[in-house]
């Protein structure tokens, strides 16, 4: 049997291997190509070897230790590696170092994911932990009010010995845990007080994009746990009222909305970013300008807010739509995990993580495409930034934790019903364990 036919045979009936091999091939060829840009770039060759290897380890090797959901892992790792690739390609144009930094954050994100998986898998009684988490989260949230620095109108960053942190990104995980715990126990006031305090602090910091994500996640989780349409509708009205208040209260919000309505009105100053974003997407066309080509670094804050525009410019709009499809599949998978959870706490936790990721994606990509006003929210997994990466991988960790518990329960059910452990035929079981 020839080597190629052996390879195709090993892929047959193995969706995980098929997908991961395609992802590895994509990143190998992309980094390999970038290594030839300008002078021979050894960093590019190294990344061409290391990134596919990391993807293989994170998606095929890690699940040997617990029954993780490989599809979710594959998609999250694909998006993280895409962020590293795009940032590295812009580094070659502008001479920055975002790509390598992002690769390090990617590693930190995998650690955060592992931590969250273990947290969900092995903690049985959450009562004490929830108190501690809630108090710590509120303290962390309030830190920027005392020691924060203002970035683009919002005072939501703190700098500790040269490292910038955005506490509201980390508190997202705490918010989900607190909301899910109290909502699963049908307690009303504790989660309401916690969520109101968090959002109040965010309003003081003028971080309205994150406040919007917090608010909508809380509201949708409330609806999921109670099915109370009246109160949810009332909450939506309250949210709309707050948005109007925010418009009149904060000058930078007013400015952003004016720019959103007509960016060409002041295209050299306030509208410069959105105009450059739209021009980058348009100049990329259907198939893009080519990896490492074009002028994406002209866009202000291209590495965080406008990373989707950079993807569209280099790879084309069709590629951008397919990236959105990957987000769509990730969200559907998250909803699938939430629906199959056996405990309401786990169900709400998984649903909350899914809603949060979905909302964040919608808010930033909607802003880039000028569907809604642009906010300073990061694109999950792809945008440059350590706290964002840790928080998003933490959310994936929570989802994975619930998925592993679901899989354990399903395996147990199957064993007691059929008196045999036929794990291979179970859905999203690890085919190679």
């Amino acid at each position, binding site marked *: 049997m020839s080597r190629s036919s052996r390879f195709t045979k090993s892929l047959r009936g193995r969706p995980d291997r098929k997908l991961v091999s395609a992802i590895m091939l994509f990143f190998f060829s992309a980094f390999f190509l970038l290594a030839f840009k300008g002078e*021979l770039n050894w960093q590019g060759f190294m990344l061409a070897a290391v990134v596919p290897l990391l993807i293989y380890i994170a998606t095929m090797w890690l699940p040997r230790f617990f029954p993780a959901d490989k599809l979710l892992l594959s998609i999250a790792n694909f998006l993280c590696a895409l962020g590293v690739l795009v940032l590295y390609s812009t580094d070659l144009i502008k001479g920055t170092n975002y790509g390598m930094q992002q690769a390090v954050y990617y590693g930190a994100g995998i650690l955060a994911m592992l931590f969250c998986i273990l947290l969900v898998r092995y903690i049985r009684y959450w009562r004490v932990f929830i108190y501690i988490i809630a108090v710590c989260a509120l303290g962390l949230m309030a830190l920027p009010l005392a020691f924060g620095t203002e970035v683009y109108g919002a005072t939501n960053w703190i700098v500790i010995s040269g490292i910038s942190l955005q506490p509201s990104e980390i508190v997202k995980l705490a918010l989900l845990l607190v909301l899910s715990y109290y909502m699963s126990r*049908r307690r009303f006031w504790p989660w309401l007080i916690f969520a109101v305090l968090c959002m109040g602090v965010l309003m003081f910091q003028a971080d309205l994009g994150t406040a919007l994500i917090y608010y909508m996640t809380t509201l949708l989780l409330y609806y999921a746990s109670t099915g109370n349409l009246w109160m949810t509708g009332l909450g939506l009205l309250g949210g709309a009222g707050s948005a109007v208040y925010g418009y009149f209260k904060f000058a930078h919000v007013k400015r952003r909305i004016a720019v959103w309505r007509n960016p060409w009105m002041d295209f050299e100053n306030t509208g410069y970013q959105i105009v450059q974003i739209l021009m980058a997407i348009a100049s990329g066309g259907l198939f893009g300008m*080519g990896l490492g080509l074009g002028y994406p670094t002209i866009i202000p804050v291209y590495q965080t807010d406008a990373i989707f525009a950079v993807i569209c410019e280099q790879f084309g709009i069709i590629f951008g739509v*397919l990236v959105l499809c990957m987000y769509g599949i990730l969200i*559907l998978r998250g909803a699938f995990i939430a629906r199959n959870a056996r*405990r*309401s706490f786990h169900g709400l936790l998984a649903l909350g993580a899914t809603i949060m990721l979905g909302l964040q994606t919608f808010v930033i990509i909607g802003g880039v495409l000028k569907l809604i006003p642009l906010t300073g929210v990061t694109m999950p997994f792809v945008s440059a930034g350590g706290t964002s990466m840790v928080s998003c991988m933490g959310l994936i960790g929570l989802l994975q934790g619930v998925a592993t518990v679901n899989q354990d329960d*399903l395996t147990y059910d199957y064993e007691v*019903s059929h008196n045999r452990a036929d794990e291979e035929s179970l*859905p999203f079981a690890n085919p190679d364990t």
Partner: protein
Amino acid sequence: MPDELYEIIALAARYWFLLLMVIIAWRSYRWFAKDRKKFKRRLKLLPDAGYVGELVVVQGDEFVSRGTCLPVSREGVLGYLRSNDICLTAGGVANRHLWYSFDDTDGLLVEPLRGRMIVADGRELVGKKMRAYLSHGSTLVVGQAKMRLRMFSGFEYAGEVAAQRLPLDEADMLPEELADAPHNDPVRRMHEIAAWQTMTEDEAEEPAFYPPEMDDDDDADDYDPPMDDSGPDAYVTQDGSQTFYPPVLDDDEEILKREEYVGEDEAETMKRVVWDKLFRGGKKP
């Protein structure tokens, strides 16, 4: 590499990257769709998936009839509202009455919510921070409903006391041909429930821990709980007679809260219904 050559290769590589991206997106979608179908098929083979057992009402009232089976998930809230995981519409059941959680080693943990009262295996639990573990065959009294927990196959030995305290000699109760049938066999299940109902009507012959029938003349207000906490015996009233139902003390407002919906006038009930609908997320069943 010269810039011109790189540009030509990068322009050609665009299509290669797009092709790979299409393959990645398509394979992800196919994997997701196939997995969902596979999961649905698997669930058809596991009709009890997600549930660890059921609470069988062995003594109900006008709102909940005897024999009603309430599936028990791994974790949730039991109460009167339809939004609860277990909706029990018997009299004296509060909107959210108790929280429960299943644990493979300890059994089913039940914990009454703030100010509520339950009786688990004859032991009275009032308010939060009081908890009890139920196992296969345990009894649970919530409001006017008395229920018996029936764990599904595979879960019946959860809880350390389960093996020693099975209330029924099931082998005697079941027909011979069903003695070796698995616990989740529907015919066996039907016979078990019927057997338990028979037991309830004939409580005098039940095991010692099971409280005897309530004497109608007993006034629940006269109740004085036994000081001896060694076993789940029947309640002993002040005049020495025995009663099955847990106490209702006049001076204990917390306990009286369990009388929600009972004894309220119509206007009060309507107010409560509106409040529940608006703020507590549930409609009346």
